[in-house]
Every structure is written in structure tokens, then in C-alpha cells.
């Protein structure tokens, strides 16, 4: 092994014991450790201290810890429920508020602007409604459209007695 390949003092030694090297890297370094006493000594002392550290005792979780946390969660959960709902809507299901907002914008635009003015069908319809209004006001009658013909039908008084046409000349003096 040449000096340039020597890994002593590099973090590869720690990475090796932490299982953080690729198979190839680990294999190469292990081979090197066999041949290089200084790296091997460094590795062994680091490993020794690491193994002692791994044996440090752990403390147990006090069973009273959860009830203390739990009591603070329930007071939080009432306040947090709405927050979470809003947050959930905005971040987890953003299409819900987005669709609702688009819908509202569409309705507002429709109310403000109305139907497109250059639509021939809607033009014709509004002209028809206008004319009907005028005719109603003049008490002329109602515009009926049937089979492509427009006709005005005089409004009839439904309470007026119907006079039967007899077919006789009403002005002829009767003798």
C-alpha cells in the first residue's frame, strides 16, 4: 500500500464500523487494514471506544409521561381541530378549496357580465322578450310564434260574454 492510499485519519474508518461504506469500499478498506498496521491500530481503538459507547445504559420511559402529554393533547385537540381541518384542506386536498373558489368566481363573473352578447340565440330571445313587453304594455296582444309564423293574438277578456255570430245582417231592418 502506498501512502496516498492510506486511509488512516480519514472518516472512512468510522464509516466502515457504522456500515456506511459500499461493499466495494468496505472490501478495499478491509484489505488495506490487513496490510497497514497504523490504520489497523487506529481502526481498532475507534472500534473499541465505539463498542463501549454502544453499551451505554438507556433510561426507561416514565409511565406517567404519556398521561401528562395526553392531557395537553385533548385541550389542544379542540382548538387544533379547526386548524387541522383548514390546513388539511389547503395542503392535503387543495383541489377542494380550489374548485370551490373557481366555482364562486365563475358565478360572480356570470352575474356581472351576463351571457356573451354576440350569441345570436340569446339576442333573438331578448328581442322577443322586449317586444312581448311592449305589446303587453300597449295591450295589443300576445306574440305567438308557431311554425315559423309570428301572429298577434288579441287578449280576450275571459269574463266577457261570448256573442254568437248568427250569420244574419244585424243592420237589416226586420220586417
Amino acid at each position: 500500500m502506498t501512502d496516498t492510499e492510506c486511509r488512516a485519519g480519514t472518516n472512512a474508518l468510522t464509516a466502515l464500523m457504522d456500515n456506511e461504506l459500499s461493499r466495494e469500499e468496505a472490501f478495499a478498506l478491509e484489505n488495506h487494514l490487513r496490510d497497514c498496521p497504523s490504520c489497523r491500530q487506529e481502526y481498532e481503538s475507534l472500534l473499541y471506544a465505539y463498542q463501549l459507547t454502544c453499551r451505554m445504559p438507556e433510561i426507561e420511559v416514565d409511565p406517567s409521561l404519556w398521561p401528562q402529554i395526553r392531557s395537553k393533547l385533548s385541550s389542544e385537540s379542540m382548538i387544533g381541530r379547526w386548524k387541522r381541518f383548514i390546513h388539511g384542506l389547503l395542503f392535503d386536498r387543495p383541489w377542494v378549496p380550489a374548485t370551490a373558489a373557481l366555482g364562486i368566481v365563475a358565478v360572480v363573473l356570470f352575474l356581472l357580465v351576463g351571457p356573451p352578447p354576440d350569441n345570436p340565440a340569446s339576442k333573438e330571445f331578448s328581442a322577443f322578450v322586449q317586444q312581448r313587453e311592449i305589446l303587453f304594455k300597449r295591450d295589443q296582444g300576445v306574440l305567438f310564434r308557431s311554425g315559423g309564423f309570428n301572429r298577434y293574438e288579441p287578449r280576450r277578456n275571459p269574463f266577457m260574454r261570448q256573442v254568437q255570430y248568427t250569420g244574419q245582417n244585424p243592420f237589416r231592418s226586420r220586417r
Partner: protein
Amino acid sequence: MSLSSSPSGDHLTELVSKAKRGDVDAFQNLYKFFSRKILNYLFRMTGSREESEDLAQDTFIQAYKKLSSLREPLKFQSWLFRIAQNNVYQKHRGRQPLIESIDEHDLTEWSELQQLTTPQMEPEAQALSVELEAVIARAISRLTEKYRTVFVLSAIQRISYQEISGIVNRSLASVKSDIHRARIVVRDKVKEYMSDRH
């Protein structure tokens, strides 16, 4: 003693999504899986049982409140460690960790643990363990916070470098070299102690 095992990916995803909707029982299950890790991480960071319990409590309450901001349920552990780390940083900032002696209950456990692990240790090294533990604890407590964090996460919590890099929000390369440097510092303290003894 039982080390709290991690839940499977599917189970974790399910628990997180239930807890996000306010299911406290699901959150309690998450607590069961992760409280020991978080508590012991905080214990090694602060050196005080009482302080680590307070910080663990804050960590889990904050986690519950902020859970809706967690995008990837599988990263729950890293995310939880990050909250714990922020708590240490904010509430413990600039303070030298205490070195609290562990109580008898923990010592009993440790001797059980010793029987379970690494039989290749020298017998006299095993006999030194209580004192040695204090030496190592002191060495950890004297590391700068930057080194202490990555040291505890890697050597005590055995978290991968990749995950640690996510927790501390630093590059993998810088995490890797900080871990190595911290290990050297602790190794030197152990070495110093051992050479004084013989």
C-alpha cells in the same frame, strides 16, 4: 429489557394519517414506538433525566400539533428527532450538559445489556464499565453541540448517516466527517482513562 422496535412502513403510514386526523390513540401508538428513542437521545444531549423528560413531553406535544405539516409519513422518525433537536437547541442552548448518575434500576438493566452484547470485550474492560460509562458520558457532554448531536444519533441511536443528514439539515459529507471527529474525541478520552488505569 425491550428496545422499542420500529413499526413497519405501512403501519407507520396508517398511524400517522390517523393521528393527523386527530386520532389520539394512533398518536399514542406512535409515542410507544418512538418515546424511548427520543427520551434517550434527549438524555444524552442534556445529561439530565428531568430535563430530557420535559423536552420529550414538549417534543411529542409539538409533533401532534404540527403533524399535518409532515408530508412523508415514512420520515416521521427523522421529523420527530428534528423537533427534539430544535427543542434542545432552543431550551438548552449554551448550557453544558449535566452529568447525572444513573439510578440502580438503570444499572441493573445495563448489566443485563452487558451480558447480551459484544462478548469480544476484554474481561477487565467489563469490570470497569460503571466508571467507564461515566467517562464516556462526560466525554459526550463536553462535545460541542454540533458534534454531540451527530455522535448521539450515530453511535447511540444508530441512525444512518443519510437520515442524520436530514435531521441536522447538513450535507452527508459534513455529517460523515463530524461523526468521525466526534468519535476521535470520545476515543481519546477513553484512551486517556484506560492508560491512567494501567
